[in-house]
């Protein structure tokens, strides 16, 4: 989930404007009700100075704040898939990266860190809401410690928060996005693996390949199928391929056309394709869309297909046993 937050593109300029606007507002209001205007405001710190100050504070109190954070994580029952030691180890590195990101504003480095962290913890079963949750908890813990430190100087606290909040929000956003990107990458990888596993190209005789297809064929799988088959034809020097679609319930027009293209492409590599196991529904589809069936060599079932392939290749199968 991406946080719908807007960050000022140039946070330095934005802050200066805010501060200047508030100072003007104060003088204007003071003039209106007759009270003397406040004395020249003290030289206010640059936002980068404020950031340095708060980063120093966070570093000084590292041990205590990190401990507080881990307690909160356990209280909220997050990261239940990890042991206390693991949580502590990860908390340390996350805390340090958080503070460093506040200091350097190097968000690309943070995103890379987030992806790396995700790569480690996703296999442990950590979910998105847990990662977002712990980052927000850290944000809260650090913010509270800032409230405590500057409680006697409300104006300064405001300025400190002006520096802290945009950066902290951006960090939360970056980590969440990094985590989600890593999950999406894993999902894509798994999908790819499933697709490959589900279309094996098998050699059953010299020069004879079988491609048994089971399940749903979408255009992407069909394309992958073709690529694997063509490579298989070249590697195994196949002259005949039997594509069995007994396990395919239905096929839409796009995929049916793709099947025809596969047959044609195989021919360009010098291989003959026999398609077997067409269900009545698929037979209907092929006839309806007007596929040129002259281009397709089809046989009822896989057994028949293999027998025809063997004939084409000049094999003869004979039984050795005496007929009973």
């Amino acid at each position, binding site marked *: 989930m991406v946080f719908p937050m807007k960050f000022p593109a140039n946070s330095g300029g934005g802050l200066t404007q805010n501060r200047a606007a508030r100072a003007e507002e104060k003088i204007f209001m003071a003039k209106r009700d007759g009270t003397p205007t406040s004395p020249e405001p003290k030289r206010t710190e640059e936002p980068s100075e404020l950031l340095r100050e708060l980063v120093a504070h966070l570093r000084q109190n590292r041990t205590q704040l990190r401990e507080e954070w881990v307690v909160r994580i356990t209280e909220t029952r997050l990261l239940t898939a990890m042991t206390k030691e693991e949580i502590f180890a990860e908390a340390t590195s996350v805390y340090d990266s958080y503070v460093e990101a506040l200091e350097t504003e190097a968000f690309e480095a943070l995103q890379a860190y987030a992806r790396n962290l995700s790569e480690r913890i996703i296999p442990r079963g950590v979910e998105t809401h847990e990662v977002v949750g712990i980052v927000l908890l850290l944000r809260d813990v650090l913010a509270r410690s800032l409230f405590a430190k500057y409680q006697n100087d409300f104006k300064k606290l405001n300025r400190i928060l002006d520096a802290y909040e945009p950066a902290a929000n951006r960090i939360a956003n970056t980590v969440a996005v990094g985590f989600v990107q890593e999950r999406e990458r894993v999902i894509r990888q798994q999908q790819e693996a499933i697709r490959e596993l589900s279309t094996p190209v098998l050699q059953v005789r010299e020069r004879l390949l079988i491609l048994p297809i089971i399940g749903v064929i979408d255009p992407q799988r069909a394309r992958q199928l*073709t*690529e694997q088959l*063509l*490579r298989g*034809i*070249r590697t195994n*020097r196949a*002259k005949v391929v039997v594509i069995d679609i007994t396990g395919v319930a239905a096929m839409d027009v796009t995929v049916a056309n793709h099947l025809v*293209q*596969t047959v*044609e*492409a*195989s*021919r*360009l*590599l*010098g*291989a003959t394709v026999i398609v077997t196991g067409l269900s009545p529904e698929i037979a209907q589809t092929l006839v309806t869309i007007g596929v040129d069936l002259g281009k397709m060599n089809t046989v009822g079932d896989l057994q028949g297909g293999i027998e025809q392939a063997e004939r084409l290749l000049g094999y003869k199968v004979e039984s050795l046993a005496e007929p009973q």
Partner: protein
Amino acid sequence: MEVPILKQGAVLIATFQAALSDADLNHLRMGLVQQVVKFRSRAVIVDVTAMDVMDSFASRTLREIALMIRLRGAETVIVGIQPEVAFAMVQLGLTLEGVATALDLEEGLAYLNEKFKTTN
């Protein structure tokens, strides 16, 4: 760019290099047929293993070469089409219909041997 044409008995073998221009293809079309006439060849193998792309002009020219050579009573076999090229070709509808194809030079020669055996 010159395309090397080798003679192997009654078979001519033309090996395409990568990236032939349209002019090269036109030149080759005439040249191959002339060689078939000169040597009274019975077959031509066109080896396109080195071609990593096949556009519609190249594909059409190959088909025309095969048809012209057939008019001289000779057979053409296209060999060595790469899987990626084959895939791209069929997606564009370039199927080289009516032209014999084989996996590589060895298969092409085997196919011709079979054919000559049965026709003799």
